[in-house]
């Protein structure tokens, strides 16, 4: 990644706009609707003044089920620049995959109730024509799924599947598309790509299948790449290879990447910014340093301290987060995390009655928690060892 992008372009641009992002995010929590400060156009369809690759504002994805309304995603906002990586972390059911499917327009026809705004390079997607989203999907934005064996078609050769994607979006002949597929397989490190292109998915190993998925996703030079648990099904040595590949390709194409995972190690390895999700809402949002070195949400503390780590001294006992993730039909009132939070009693009952807003701890570092800055410092001093 070029140094300028890394140092200067956090958030939307300069400091001023960064603060704006913070206010806008906080606003989204307050009212539920679009806050007055949001620079959206009169029709709400364009976002003038923004040059980010992806801008998600107050996204809500609800599913009506027989048991009740499932609020899988309930007011998520973030933005992402070209060349940068956003890591979305959370437990199963926290809404991270639903968010990514909403961006890709893949909830169409599932009965999902989607609200909010998604701008891809200035183009609004939530209210866009499904045909238009279909055009963008695969060309301007692409996705890598978790399990390459079930997302590749077993009846078609790997090559045929890459060629199909390329033909749909480009006016080229079959021969040129095939050459392009071979080139892509080469690029992602598949040996003897010219012959392996005619292999079926079952003839590939797990790591090679994931490489083929990446080749397919990148075949039309997408500007936004979403990787949903790209290495969860892989062994550690292969995982390391795939993470390197994603990061190399990002530098080469200068694309924006969203990586969705439950593995904090993978996130630390790849991400510039991190969004921690809990029960469909953002618990914490900030740069990787903010979240790993200066984490402000008890849930993030819990995640960081509950995992056994190879880079630290072995702890005699792990410190788990108590309880279990909440049901999304019956989300606890107030702060959804309060039944599991070790510090909920310090908020004077607010965490059981009032939904915490996303507040700015430091510029660009947002946390949805009722604890005051002093309480947080005190807790950190007492209980939590932040970095030896």
């Amino acid at each position, binding site marked *: 990644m070029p140094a300028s992008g890394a140092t200067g372009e956090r958030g939307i641009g300069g400091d001023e706009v960064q603060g704006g992002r913070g206010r806008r995010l906080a606003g989204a929590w307050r009212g539920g609707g679009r806050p007055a400060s949001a620079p959206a156009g009169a029709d709400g369809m364009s976002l003038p003044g923004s040059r980010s690759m992806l801008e998600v504002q107050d996204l809500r994805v609800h599913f009506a089920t027989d048991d009740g309304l499932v609020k899988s995603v309930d007011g998520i906002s973030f933005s992402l620049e070209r060349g940068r990586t956003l890591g979305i972390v959370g437990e199963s059911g926290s809404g991270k995959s639903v968010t990514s499917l909403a961006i890709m327009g893949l909830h169409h026809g599932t009965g999902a109730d989607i609200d909010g705004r998604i701008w891809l390079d200035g183009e609004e997607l939530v209210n866009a024509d499904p045909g238009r989203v279909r055009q963008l999907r695969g060309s301007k934005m692409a996705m890598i799924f978790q399990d390459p064996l079930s997302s590749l078609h077993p009846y078609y050769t790997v090559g045929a599947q890459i060629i199909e994607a390329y033909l749909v979006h480009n006016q080229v002949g079959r021969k040129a598309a095939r050459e392009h597929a071979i080139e892509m397989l080469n690029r992602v490190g598949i040996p003897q790509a010219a012959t392996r292109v005619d292999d079926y998915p079952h003839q590939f190993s797990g790591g090679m299948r994931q490489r083929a998925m990446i080749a397919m996703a990148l075949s039309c030079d997408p500007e936004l790449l979403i990787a949903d648990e790209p290495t969860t099904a892989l062994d550690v040595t292969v995982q390391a290879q795939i993470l390197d590949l994603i990061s190399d390709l990002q530098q080469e194409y200068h694309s924006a990447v969203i990586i969705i995972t439950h*593995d904090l190690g993978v996130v*630390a390895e790849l991400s510039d910014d991190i969004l921690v999700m809990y029960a469909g809402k953002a618990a914490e949002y900030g740069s*990787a340093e903010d979240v*790993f070195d200066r984490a402000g949400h008890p849930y993030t503390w819990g995640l960081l301290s509950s995992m056994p*780590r190879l880079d630290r001294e072995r702890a005699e006992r*792990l410190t788990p987060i108590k309880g279990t993730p909440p049901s999304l039909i019956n989300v606890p009132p107030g702060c959804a995390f309060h039944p599991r939070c070790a510090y909920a009693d310090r908020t004077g009952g607010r965490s059981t009655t009032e939904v915490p807003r996303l507040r700015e701890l430091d510029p660009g570092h947002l946390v949805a928690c009722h604890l005051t800055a002093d309480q947080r410092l005190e807790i950190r001093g007492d209980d939590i060892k932040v970095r030896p």
Partner: protein
Amino acid sequence: MSSSLTEAATAGSGGAPDDALLRVTGLTKHFPVTRGIIFRQKVGAVQAVDGVSFSVAPGETLGLVGESGCGKTTTGRLLNRLLEPTSGQIIFDGRDITHLSAARMRPVRRDVQMIFQDPYSSLNPRHTVGAIVGAPLRLQKVPTEKGVKATVQELLEMVGLNPEHYNRYPHEFSGGQRQRIGIARTLTLKPKLIIADEPVSALDVSIQAQVVNLLEDLQRELGLTYVVIAHDLSVVRHIADQVAVMYLGKLVEMAPRDQLYARPRHPYTVALMSAVPVPEPVRDETGARARRQRIRLSGDVPSPLNPPRACRFHTRCWKAQDICRTEEPPLAELVSGHQVACHFPENTAPAA
């Protein structure tokens, strides 16, 4: 190879050999690959486990680590005879159980229980929790003092579940709670040895720690012996006393936990450890995202149908020399209690 076997067998796990609860010598499982329908011909064999030897002392935990396809799960299934070993010997509690018949094996199963990886597919969805946890009592016809229900409720309490939930069905529980049900079921018959195959890998991070702590508490309270099979090196480091690393059906390294993690000797172990992502961002001088220094293995694990000759790791090893392609390195004890099968081990300089 036979020399390496006897060596490994005598070396044991470092403890006094006769005290071991479980002793495995030269354990081998080859799955035949056949062709033809009427006239079945054996055309090859998947060498899933090939000459594995180790022992586990009572109250200890052995961690079996490796990537998928290395034979760790097959080893686990051989240990409680869910699979029939091709050769080798399994001695449990002083008794050779290698080739016991199903009927003779049945009483032994009271003492050897298994925790499975997937808490969703390992519990019968049509049975209540009470029926699931109480099933071992019924199947083994074990009389209970206070009745099945009271016994089961005691067990549920022991694993941190509400005993009132006796009549609920598995789908009413979360993944972590289901894994607790599975653990309660293994405890029903008061076993001596529990084989846990990836007990926490299907669980969320915050729940993983709960289950790991539970397993440790139960071990302390009930004096259990564990064989924990896992791919996650950090979980194994937490839970195991002895760690054995497998690659393509063979043990490549075995040592006490602290020794193995502080000074891994086999290049494969070194690479495996360095591949684990660390939850701490790395930045260069300019503050841009940087890449962690690590050993990068190329390619995938070779097929166990046709494993590489001599040292099975030589195709991916950065230290491989000619001898690695011609001569198999024996699993030898380099320092006390630390066995490595490598011609050119790492970290051999004396500790500072």
